[in-house]
């Protein structure tokens, strides 16, 4: 991984997408990715899309707990006497 000689920089940037958004890169790796992103709209678009996608997945997967279940869980509590 990384932007070494002979490596397609966009492929290298694609490999860094997840750790970049997870804030798992070292400062040096992050700086390398940002230099590339500044000059590459192809990768920039895809990074922005990934950020938005993660938000959307979180929101789309959320389902409220049925109120009847909450009641059933409360009934599982240990009686005081």
């Amino acid at each position, binding site marked *: 991984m990384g932007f070494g000689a002979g490596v397609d920089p966009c*492929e290298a940037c*694609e*490999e860094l*997408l*997840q750790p970049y958004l997870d804030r*798992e890169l070292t400062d040096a790796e992050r700086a390398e990715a940002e230099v590339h992103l500044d000059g590459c*709209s192809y990768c*920039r*678009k*895809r990074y*922005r*899309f*990934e*950020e*938005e*996608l*993660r*938000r*959307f*997945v*979180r929101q*789309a*997967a*959320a*389902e*409220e*707990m*049925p109120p009847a*279940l*909450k009641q*059933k*869980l*409360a009934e*599982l*509590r*240990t009686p*005081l006497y």
Partner: protein
Amino acid sequence: MGETTPEAEPRKLAEEARDRVHFEEEALELADQVYRVARRLVSTREEAEDLMQDTYARAFRAWRSYQPGTNLRAWLLRILTNLNIDRGRRQQRAPDLQPLEEGDYYLYNKLEETGRAPNVDQERVDERLSQDDVVSALSAVPHDFRDVIVLVDIGDFSYADAAQILEIPIGTVMSRLHRGRRILKRELADQTVGSV
């Protein structure tokens, strides 16, 4: 002197009852958040409801083993994921060790190929993908990978918490998350673009 008096035992019982009530209240306050994760670990609402009831019944019985001050939501989810595995989930596990050709740009590239790529300045993913697309793509991700995505990306747990809940090394959490997200995007692409 007080601890040896006949009043000591009732006082101890009262304190324990108070701690238990406090624990139960705290656990119930977290039920919505626990359900959000449970719902996506299993396929149906009925399974999620059964799992929640079994989890809370066990948690209320085992409340003394919870260490106050630690992450109660993670503790509850550890019970829940163990129960889920005990229910025979392991039989469905199929190791997904095939090389994954689709990288992280795969979904975007597919959307772009079909003229559905989001606008650069307005990443309105919701105009390209529906909630149903996400739910069914997620359910198509193999369990081992889905568990990690659900805990980290939906449940908002840290890698360390997810590792503890699933009883796997943190490096495994990271590699499953990396691969799982790519599988999820492949599934999303198949569902939204593949059918065109």
